[in-house]
């Protein structure tokens, strides 16, 4: 192994583990404040009941469920992207695969909390495990998510072992003794013997394959929570694959955004290059095309056939929700396609902007899947107070949403201080191959 090469990698990638800048603490404190405001909102909600949210008897699921689907989607996308990159031995994966793996686990740690916020009696959540009824899609989802939590955690961990060993063996690493101790324990005595290497490679391949399958199944199950009901707009056979595609769309978008952020802040320009943005941009392009195609066929069949309820729903989407609809399903899909399709536009900045638009548009897309359907039940909403008719999220819901995003940021920031955000071992392997 090339010693100098490793020294260089360590020198470039480990400073963030060794010392923490003031601005890191500042940003972290800011996120912490957002998180605390969210906790205050949650306390209000638990204390006064769900009356403090914008949800009422018709729109019983609101922003919380949108966030749940959104974060779970990011997680599955992270799994699908990192699993695929790993399994197909994509040559350029080395600097970005760990970010994708981290997205998987961190989003997965946040998503389920939004379901909890939506549940009327938090203290009875354990009933799902105590009295489960297997015919309920929620129970399918609980089983699926629990499987996914373990799968994703193992996948992330096995991908970290080699790096932990490298950090443990690195004499120049200036870091707290407890971190050194942590590296020693977590590296599980890995020294890189051929036998160990073989076992580790095998585990990583198996987990990569499994995580792809789990991600597809789990996100389809989540889509079926909506698909199995009779509600107009939800009762659709396309929902499973549609949700999976949507998830990958948002996940690739987020990956590009994180690449841009960490590249800049942690000075990784040498490793995360334009090539990575363009390659992932092309992935985003393909997924956007698929996503647009699914969206189009879902709405086209509803609009053309114009069954009474579908017609009411489509009318609502095209009038009251027009702005959202145009942003989510035209701008959100076409922007990445146009930016990537024209080579001249393919700059790191443009691709990042496209990714941001894609990510936000997907959230809005989820919103106009959930809310308009609930506002158009089979029997017209009547004999109900006027101000209970329509949904508009309250500050409690927004504060918890912001808290979710803040926790995502904080977890990413913490992990980036404990282990390299770019995989050293992957880079080493990639460079070795290039040398040969």
């Amino acid at each position, binding site marked *: 192994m090339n010693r100098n090469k490793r020294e260089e990698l360590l020198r470039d990638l480990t400073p963030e583990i060794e010392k923490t800048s003031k601005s890191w603490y500042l940003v972290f404190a800011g996120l912490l404040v957002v998180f605390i405001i969210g906790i205050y909102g949650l306390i209000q909600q638990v204390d*006064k*009941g*769900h*009356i403090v949210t914008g*949800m*009422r*008897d*018709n729109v*019983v*699921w609101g922003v919380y469920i949108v966030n749940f689907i959104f974060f779970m989607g990011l997680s599955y996308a992270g799994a699908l992207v990192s699993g695929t990159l790993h399994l197909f031995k994509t040559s350029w994966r080395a600097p970005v695969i760990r970010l994708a793996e981290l997205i998987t686990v961190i989003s997965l740690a946040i998503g389920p909390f939004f*379901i909890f916020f*939506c*549940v*009327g*009696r938090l203290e*009875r*959540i354990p*009933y*799902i495990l*105590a*009295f*489960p*009824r297997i*015919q*309920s*899609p*929620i*129970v399918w989802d*609980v089983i699926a998510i629990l499987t996914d939590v373990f799968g994703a955690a193992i996948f992330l961990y096995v991908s970290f072992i080699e790096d932990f060993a490298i950090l443990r063996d690195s004499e120049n690493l200036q870091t707290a003794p407890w971190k050194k101790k942590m590296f020693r324990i977590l590296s599980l005595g890995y020294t890189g013997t051929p036998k160990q290497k073989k076992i580790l490679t095998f585990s990583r391949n198996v987990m990569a394959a499994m995580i792809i399958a789990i991600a597809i199944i789990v996100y389809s199950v989540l889509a079926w*929570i909506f698909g*199995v*009901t*009779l*509600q107009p707009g939800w009762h659709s056979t396309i929902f499973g694959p549609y949700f999976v595609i949507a998830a990958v769309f948002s996940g690739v978008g987020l990956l590009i955004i994180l690449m841009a952020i960490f590249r800049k802040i942690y000075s990784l320009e040498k490793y995360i290059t334009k090539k990575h943005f363009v390659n992932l941009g092309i992935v985003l392009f393909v997924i956007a095309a698929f996503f647009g195609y699914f969206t189009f066929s879902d709405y086209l069949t509803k609009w053309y056939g114009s069954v009474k309820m579908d017609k009411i729903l489509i009318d609502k989407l095209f*009038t*009251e929700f027009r702005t959202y609809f145009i942003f989510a399903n035209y701008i959100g899909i076409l922007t990445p396609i146009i930016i990537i399709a024209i080579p001249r536009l393919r700059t790191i900045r443009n691709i990042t902007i496209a990714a941001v638009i894609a990510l936000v548009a997907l959230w809005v897309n989820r919103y106009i899947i959930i809310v308009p359907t*609930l506002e158009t*039940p*089979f*029997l*017209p*909403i*009547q*004999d*109900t*107070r*006027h*101000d*209970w*008719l*329509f949904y*508009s999220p309250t500050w409690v819901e927004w504060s918890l949403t912001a808290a979710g995003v803040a926790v995502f940021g904080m977890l990413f920031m913490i992990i980036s201080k404990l282990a390299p955000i770019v995989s050293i071992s992957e880079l080493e392997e990639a460079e070795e191959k290039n040398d040969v």
Partner: protein
Amino acid sequence: MEKEAKDSSSRRKFIRKFGLGLGSVAVAGSAAVAAGTSGSDGSGEKVTLLSADGQLVEVDRASIRVARKETREQIKKSHLGIPGRKFVMVIDLAKCKNARKCVDACQEGHMLPRDHEWIKIQLLQDSELTARYWFPKPCYHCDSPLCVSVCPVGATYKREDGIVLVDNKRCIGCKFCMTACPYSARVFNWKDPEVDMPKDHVYDPELNVPPVEGTVGKCVFCADRLRINELPRCVRACPMGVIYFGDVNEDAVTNGVETLRFSSLMVERHGYRHMEELGTMPTVYYLPPVDRMYPVEIGFEDLDESISDRYKPQGSKKSAKPKK
């Protein structure tokens, strides 16, 4: 709850200990008496009691214990339903004039707060050129209930007599049943309803009182009244005799004034179920609004303004907002 559970188990132990075939006998409505005949460790003084199967029995006074109604027992009982029954409701749309007495009786009987109605009166118009009509909508107690299928914890259940109930001590408040129900029959307790219950009140899903914050509620067909051979509150309250209630097995329904043969009513008045095509198989039937007794406008008379407001065109989100 914990204490009740302890009580219940000690009572069961008591019965088991004496190995009785006699079990419990019902006296004076709610109180039940568990009694033993062994007499070996009793005081010797005998009491004559009427057993559930109508026989006079002598039991030792010392082994009599008054059994309190217990939540756990009530919930268990509420799962079983009333044997041999298959309840059905028929709503005669020709007679309804939105008098809202059914709503009031239901609200009062179930201690429901305002804006939390288990029965709603819709004003429907099937298409532009057809007539409007008042349409009372309770829970349909479907024979293929999606709400029951999707409940993750078994808090809502279908009994053998056809009634669908909610156990608000089990409900976690995920609201999946509310999105699954195509008739919007369910309502959520968005805040603590703050009803004062008598101290000795025992929760029973058949009455489903008091409402619990963060759980789902809905029409229970007044299962508690059916238990004591009474008609549901809405049926009794309706001044027009709109709502008929009965038993398919007996082929009879009554609105409290007249009792009709269910099958002939269906034939003669062309009974139907709302949105049959959804396949949920409701047990509530409607008689079409033909040969109406009143014009539909009568339904707007004498309405509280806050209620008549509810029938104004909904408009869009923007036009609804200033009313907040």
